[in-house]
């Protein structure tokens, strides 16, 4: 079930009514939590109930390991239980998400030396299993709980059903945000009071999320696909179709893709935030106007911040973080981003993308002390202009990374870079069915214009709920305009890109 479908609307209305009705019954919290757990399983099982088994395994393993780690006191057994949890969780993830990737890479490497190696690998070696929706999100969330218990940052949860709800809470089950147990579990164990402000915030986030997903993301998508094609099947049927695009078109499409995936994912996360808020639960903000970042480090604080936080807490810092010298710091940084890339998908293009990000941030970190500071004497408009240019450059560079992220394979990435680097760019003509560069760029800009205004307000006021501090008529106008775009121009039922991760 996806948020941007009619069936979710019916599902959520039923859940909402029953959920708040239960709050007044004796034992209301318990009943609410049991009902939410049931609803979360229905939500996930709607896609394929069979894969609830995997969620149950993850839930059971981490629930037991948490208890056993806590009971083990000091010593080696604690560590054994922790590693057992990590091994089982990563094992599940490895089989379902990465096995074919590693097997394929191994076979390719072997064939580079001996073309006849593994002649029947395609039929005998690969698993070709379904990638369970949201597996990376719930596995990371559940695994982080065990690590937090091991670190004694939180006590082990004794109530299995409450723990199961923490793992499967439907608003954030399939695409995050990846919540910390220390943030979410206490909320689930505390009676939730119906609060109008939560309802108001929830409706705003849902409205905003639907605007991002159904209008911006899903209307940019077809434009981006003119350069990046409609899918892997189209690419594999005719790999030559990706070659020979205009350099400017590739650049615009890549930046367009950065906006598409931002709105696709942030839209879904914001709807999750809103849905949870309507149920009286506060989730972590996953995206905060990343296009207004002035450097890559800031970008990663604003982009998918819950994953960034996870990787920092459970990979970067345990590796030593920045504590053991400059080179170790950059090694750790690159490792962390290598894993971030791999988390996104089982393809070398994602690994390259992660490394691109790692090198970019490392480069920025190395040079930032030497970069000239903006003179305070400069007039405000000039300072604003320079900041704007920095933002455009940072998000533009992030967009260029789509040439890895969105590419179907390394060869595709190569073709895109080749197009971008062939100078001079032909700006005047239509190339491979894509409009002349400036017209194509203008089409993309049209789709993001309103988004930029809304995000600018958020960024300027540093408040996601800025709208509620505006005049009533402006609020009414913004609600109406967003609703107009959703109903009149939105696409419904389209998959969320991050489901595949």
């Amino acid at each position: 079930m996806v948020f941007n479908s009619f069936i979710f609307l019916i599902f959520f209305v039923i859940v909402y009514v029953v959920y708040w009705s239960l709050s007044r019954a004796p034992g209301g919290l318990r009943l609410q939590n049991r009902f939410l757990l049931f609803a979360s399983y229905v939500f996930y099982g709607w896609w394929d109930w069979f894969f609830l088994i995997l969620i149950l395994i993850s839930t059971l393993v981490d629930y037991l390991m948490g208890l056993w780690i806590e009971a083990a006191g000091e010593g080696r057994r604690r560590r054994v239980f922790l590693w057992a949890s990590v091994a089982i969780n990563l094992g599940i993830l490895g089989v379902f998400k990465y096995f074919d990737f590693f097997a394929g890479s191994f076979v390719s490497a072997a064939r580079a030396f001996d073309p006849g190696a593994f002649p029947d690998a395609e039929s005998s070696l690969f698993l070709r299993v379904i990638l369970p929706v949201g597996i990376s999100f719930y596995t990371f969330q559940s695994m982080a709980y065990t690590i937090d218990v091991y670190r004694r940052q939180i006590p082990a949860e004794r109530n299995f059903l409450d723990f199961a709800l923490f793992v499967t809470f439907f608003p954030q089950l399939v695409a995050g945000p990846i919540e910390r147990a220390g943030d979410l579990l206490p909320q689930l164990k505390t009676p939730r009071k119906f609060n109008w402000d939560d309802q108001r915030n929830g409706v705003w986030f849902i409205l905003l999320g639907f605007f991002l997903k159904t209008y911006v993301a899903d209307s940019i998508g077809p434009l981006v696909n003119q350069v990046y094609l409609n899918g892997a099947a189209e690419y594999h049927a005719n790999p030559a179709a990706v070659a020979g695009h205009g350099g400017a078109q590739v650049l615009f499409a890549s930046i367009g893709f950065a906006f598409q995936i931002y709105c696709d994912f942030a839209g879904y996360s914001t709807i999750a935030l809103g849905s949870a808020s309507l149920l009286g639960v506060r989730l972590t903000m996953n995206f905060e106007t990343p296009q207004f970042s002035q450097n890559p480090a800031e970008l990663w604080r604003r982009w998918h911040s819950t994953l960034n936080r996870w990787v920092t807490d459970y990979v970067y810092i345990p590796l030593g973080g920045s504590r053991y010298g400059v080179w170790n710091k950059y090694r750790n940084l690159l490792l962390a981003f290598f894993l971030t890339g791999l988390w996104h998908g089982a393809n070398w293009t994602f690994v390259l993308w992660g490394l691109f990000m790692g090198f970019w941030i490392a480069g920025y970190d190395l040079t930032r002390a030497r970069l000239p500071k903006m003179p305070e004497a400069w007039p405000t408009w000039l300072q604003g202009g320079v900041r704007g240019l920095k933002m455009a450059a940072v998000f533009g560079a992030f967009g260029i990374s789509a040439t890895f992220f969105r590419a179907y394979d390394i060869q595709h990435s190569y073709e895109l870079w080749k197009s971008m680097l062939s100078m001079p760019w032909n700006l005047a003509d239509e190339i491979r069915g894509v409009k002349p560069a400036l017209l194509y760029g203008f089409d993309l800009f049209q789709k993001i214009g309103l988004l930029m205004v809304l995000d600018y307000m958020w960024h300027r006021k540093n408040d996601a709920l800025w709208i509620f501090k505006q005049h009533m008529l402006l609020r009414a106008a913004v609600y109406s305009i967003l609703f107009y775009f959703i109903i009149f121009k939105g696409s419904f039922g389209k998959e969320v890109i991050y489901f595949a991760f």
Partner: protein
Amino acid sequence: MRNWIQTSAAFVRRYPAAWICVGIFAAVELFARIAPVEYGMGAAVFLTKHRRDLVDASGPDFDYIIFGESRSLSLLGHAPTGPENWSVYNLSLPAMGSRYYSYYLEKYLANRYNKPSALIFAGDMAVFQEGWNLPLHDPARIYTDSREDTLLQYLSHRIVRRPAQGLSPPPAAANAPQEAIWETYSHRYLFLFSPAELMHQFHGAERLFVLREAAPLQYYTFRYRDALRYFLSNPFPQAAEPLPAECRLCANSYAPMCRPDLTQFQDNAALAAGLDARYGQINLGDRLTLEQVMSYSVIRDRLVKDTQDFFNRIRPDLRPLIALLETARRAGVPVVLAPTPTVREYRDTRFYKEIEAQLPGILARYPEAHRIDFAEPHLPAERFVDQIHYDCAGAEQVNADFYRTVMPQVLRVAPPAQGRRLRALDSEL
């Protein structure tokens, strides 16, 4: 209850901006419900809505109605004028599959005082292909044995049969064609029938699927969003100039003066005027541009060969025809099968041979049904613009054949009761 009302009133007072927004969209919804906004929709939706309005109306009662598909839309209707005081109205709809025919007839008869003297089924028999008759919610039939499966059966199959599939991806490819057809053409079903009618037509899990698809369209702002958007950018649409008389000639089909650049509103207005004047007829082949026709003609041989191969692969499923004959029998309406001429090369394909083999048996069970063939039941590929629709000359030839060969026989096997009544009234006066 009182508490709830007080809380709601407090909410209204507290969030006036939200209520202004709700007010604006309530006004838009009202507009979408009372104004003829369908004139801003695409021609396909407009045609369906035009048909629905006609079929739902309590009159006029036609002596003969034509059902079919996009090609049979080319058949001219007949106004009850002069000595031939009987009427024919072409109610064909393009790309609707075949399951809807019996419900379409029920819908037409529901509001009519006089039933038609005959229903002329002029659709291509290709509408009765197996693939168009699969359960909409599960075209690959993984969890559905038949369309009559109950919801409980479907759900239990989903649970019981799922483990057998293991961890391999489902056969998505098998679903794809049917899903694509639904994706492309479902609006016709959903715009033609009300949810109550769809509820009656579908069963089990399929009913749930169709109602789920229909439900969002009950919000008319969403249903007619394309039209509302159109009227927002063109708030004062102008009527188009009438076409010169020369444009009725096939020779001028693609002359620039006969191909004015029409807005959506003008196009639909012209379409409605044409449908009303020609009793439901429109030759879809004439709507193609010269460029489209030229490109089809370049690949004509290849298209014919591919379509031949297709007809050699697919199998017929005549259950929807039997359902139509049953409905017609219950209503006391004779049926005349008069399929419009197809491309000559398709005649000997397996599909059409199987149809020809099965039809006599079916017709024997329904003696009130008749088969009347066109004098030329097949035409050369050159008479079609895209292997489906006639070019202007093809449509003229088929219409001449229809009124020269088919209609006289129809009038003989199913005389126009209403026309007779009208003539009797005339003589009394």
